[in-house]
């Protein structure tokens, strides 16, 4: 516990101290908020973009994942197929997934070549202004994660309640609405929190499949960190601190939502 606190707390503390101007590489140390205000526009745009990507990815992953979990717990052959696909998707690293999406869906990618569509007419999926490829890649991998987590919950506790309701004469739709989904809600909420925080802080997918401007927070932080001007380092630390604060706020909101679900009480 102390080791985890040292690593996490020390790392965050170090970033915080650097962002407040107390650990400059050159020059005098002085407490100031300059690092936060220096890239004001980029920071605000980055927050908006990161939240949008994270929200879209999380929402889509949860919907697709929940549906897949329901299919898996049916017990028939489609259920086993979906379970197999999900289990196969999870070990593939995001970097490999992003590279594959880039190779398949870019203007000169494999899919437009197979379909015979020239690059200029292919929609801007990779590097486009809607960041579709990025959301697609996150959704693809995280929905598998949600599917397996929720399927685990559904197959254990929920199965008993579901069978009882069926025995008492409830139709499939009513069982879904009144038994299965409310009981699966805590698992979905916890998965959603994990996915949201992960996509908020993820760098490689956003960088490989995105565009130079606007930049999500991790891409902005990395560009500032590796910038040739030494004064950009505290600015990178500031972006990292902002990302951490947003993540903590989301976790707090998620835990509050979790406490209000019936299963928690």
């Amino acid at each position, binding site marked *: 516990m102390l080791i985890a606190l040292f690593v996490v707390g020390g790392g965050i503390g170090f970033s915080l101290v650097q962002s407040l101007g107390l650990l400059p590489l*050159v020059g005098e140390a002085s407490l100031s908020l300059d690092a936060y205000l220096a890239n004001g526009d980029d920071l605000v745009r980055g927050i908006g973009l990161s939240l949008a990507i994270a929200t879209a990815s999380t929402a889509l992953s949860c919907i697709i994942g929940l549906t897949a979990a329901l299919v898996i717990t049916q017990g028939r052959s489609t259920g086993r197929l979906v379970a197999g696909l999900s289990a196969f998707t999870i070990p593939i690293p995001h970097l490999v997934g992003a590279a594959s999406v880039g190779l398949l869906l870019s203007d000169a990618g494999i899919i437009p070549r197979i379909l015979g569509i020239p690059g*200029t007419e292919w929609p801007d999926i990779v590097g486009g*202004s809607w960041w579709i490829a990025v959301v697609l890649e996150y959704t693809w991998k995280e929905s598998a994660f949600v599917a397996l987590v929720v399927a685990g919950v559904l197959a254990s506790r929920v199965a008993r309640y579901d069978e009882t309701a069926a025995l008492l004469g409830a139709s499939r739709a009513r069982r879904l609405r009144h038994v299965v989904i409310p009981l699966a809600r805590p698992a979905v909420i916890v998965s959603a929190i994990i996915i949201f925080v992960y996509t908020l802080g993820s760098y490689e997918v956003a960088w490989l499949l995105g565009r130079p401007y606007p930049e999500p927070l991790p891409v902005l932080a990395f560009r500032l960190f590796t910038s040739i001007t030494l004064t950009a380092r505290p600015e990178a630390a500031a972006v990292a601190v902002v990302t951490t604060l947003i993540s903590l706020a989301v976790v707090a909101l998620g835990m509050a939502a979790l406490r209000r679900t019936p299963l928690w009480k």
Partner: protein
Amino acid sequence: MNSHHPARAGLAASLTLGLVVALAACSADAGASSEQSYETWDEVVAAAEGQTVKLWMYGGDEQGNAYVNDVLVPAAAEQGVTLEQVPIADTPDALNRILSEVQAGETDGEVDLVWVNGNNFGTGKEAGAWECGWTDLLPNMALTDPADPLLLDDFGTPVDGCEAPWHKAQFTFVYNSDTVTDVPSTLDELLDWARANPGRFTYPAPPDFTGSVFVREVLYSVSGGYENVPLAYSEEAFEELTPALYDELTDLAPSLWRGGETYPQNSNELNELFANGEVDFTMTYGPATLTELVADGTYPAGTQVLTLDEGTVGNASFLGLASTSGSKAGAMVVANLALSVEQQVAKAEPDVWGQFTVLDLDQLSDEERALFEALPTSPVVPSYDVLSENANPELAAAWVTPIDEAWRAQVLAR
């Protein structure tokens, strides 16, 4: 886990804060570059025996990696030094590592030699990252021209013996002669060609190195030639000369690839677009690699180098010695080896790496000069003297960041 144990939470918090403050107190006194301590070359050679030297350099160039691992490493082993290449994606990665070690007061760091120039060198020199005053000890330094402006100033920062020369580069434009019928001969004509052929030209987004130098080339062009742009940075010069630059680039944007809404993130992406036939021009600091790329079919068969009437920017790149290195003698031996005639000739061969030499050919003996003249010529790339005709000097490093940031604000974010 809630507030059942406020005392324990308080203790943990103060412990963490104490550790952070202790770490902060460890940061070394930055800003003073260290001076080396060897008196003669023989001392260096003796101390270098058995040392391991790590060379941090860009790892995306296959020919570069092959040259270092197959030619330079064995040659260094003959002198008793174990050389290892550490491939990196971008030179700031190495600089960041050194700076972190400087902050921690490290004396046997992970970084020994770095392939560096320009802004990375200037920033490092300011923060005390480089060992200085060692290049005069190298016997092979005598083969370079002591008055060569490309070797005395690195993007406007005086070198002061803080880095050893390695090779020279010339920024070149590359085009596909099969699809470009109306070949431009000046940068203005090139931009006009882009307007006449929308969607067939683009450039990497600064702060990528190649995109950054392209923007500076356009600055030279809109200012009427490089003589009209002062090499040293000043706010007045910036305010006076850059509005025309950004007006030109914003005016050009709608005719670029994807309507100028987005740009390739780095030169590799631009090269991919060129290889896939999505654009007809690319640009590079290393034209020697073109011969190989055309020969193996990566680039279109009609690829040619574009020579501009007003010339393009040329510079030299160096090997920097980290002030936190624990194998400084070994690193000096490697730097001296890299400057030797055999290594410079091997490196200049197009099949090996094709990098232009920093040596002064007038200072060499006749046999040595003959080795350089025997290098094969290429159908794609003209020889170095043609390429570097009218070579423009690089602007001082202090220009680079303001130009890049203003580009992002005015052209990219419009």
